């Protein structure tokens, strides 16, 4: 294969936009959760389990976590694009990161809804 500089993959905007949107989701959830927890006079295990027994909280927690994983994917991909130059190695790291994040997403569902 010739060693030419190639650009023009024609993507990037969607990822950039999604990174911004997921950041907003994480900020809103993070602040809301922090405010709720700080407002509890006695923060203990019972309060915590009561909070996470609500389907709404679980759903929004999952939304937060999925946002986190998507956000992390774009961020880590950008770092790898900057610092890892060999294409094969880069592709391998990309695949590993995607698989790990998918695993985390499945694990999150299990934590939130599992026994």
């Amino acid at each position, binding site marked *: 294969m010739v060693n030419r500089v190639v*650009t023009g*993959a*024609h*993507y*990037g*905007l*969607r*990822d950039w*936009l999604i990174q911004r949107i997921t950041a907003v989701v994480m900020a809103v959830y993070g602040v809301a959760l922090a405010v709720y927890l700080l407002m509890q006079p006695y923060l203990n295990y019972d309060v915590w389990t009561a909070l996470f027994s609500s389907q709404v909280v679980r759903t929004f927690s999952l939304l937060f976590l999925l946002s986190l994983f998507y956000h992390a994917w774009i961020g880590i991909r950008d770092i790898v694009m900057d610092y890892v130059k060999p294409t094969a190695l880069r592709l391998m790291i990309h695949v590993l990161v995607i698989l790990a994040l998918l695993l985390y997403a499945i694990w999150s569902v299990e934590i939130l809804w599992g026994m």
Partner: protein
Amino acid sequence: MKFKIYRYNPDTDTEPYMQDYELDIRPEDSSQGKMLLDALLLIKQQDDSLALRKSCREGVCGSDAMNINGRNGLACITPLSSLKEPVELRPLPGLPVIRDLIVDMTQFFKQYHSIKPYLINNDPPPETERLQSPQQRAHLNGLYECILCGCCTTACPSFWWNPDKFVGPAGLLQAYRFIADTRDQATSERLDDLEDPYRLFRCHTIMNCVDVCPKELNPTEAIGNIKDLMVKRMV
């Protein structure tokens, strides 16, 4: 005044080194010249082996861009009185050094040319000029003033890591200069060309470009405007 200047002559030196110079001048005394370039020319009288680029000596040509005490700037419009001693001068970072303070700008201009820095308009040229309203012309303010000195692009970490793929702040500012021009008809093609994870989206809003620009331009804002137009086009 004390100076420490980066020296490298590929014909004689195996590696670069810093050389000390001292000038008997006081920055307050304007009869001896007030700007860093004046001091550099005095140093060159002491040691004519020192190589640097300069031309207009008033911040218009952009030739004497260099790294001054760790910050990119133009020597000709940097007042000596603003500098902490010893004044450490290095070539612009991120580009190959040809000699001393002179860098090879090929990569920089390659990126600049890649954005097609000229008006694309397929209508037959009118008898006089292509007219713009004052409001349309106002959109070019803060864009057309760029002198391509390279201070911003060589201060950008994203350019350091991907100089062959990332257009860089100077190139992107000029890309937006033609996107913003109502006389240009290639907006969509220009956006297509820039919609790329490397060419545009290596910009992570670090804003070193805004920090160092000697003409006080704002490439980050221009890049944001390009992204906004892409979003507008997509949604």
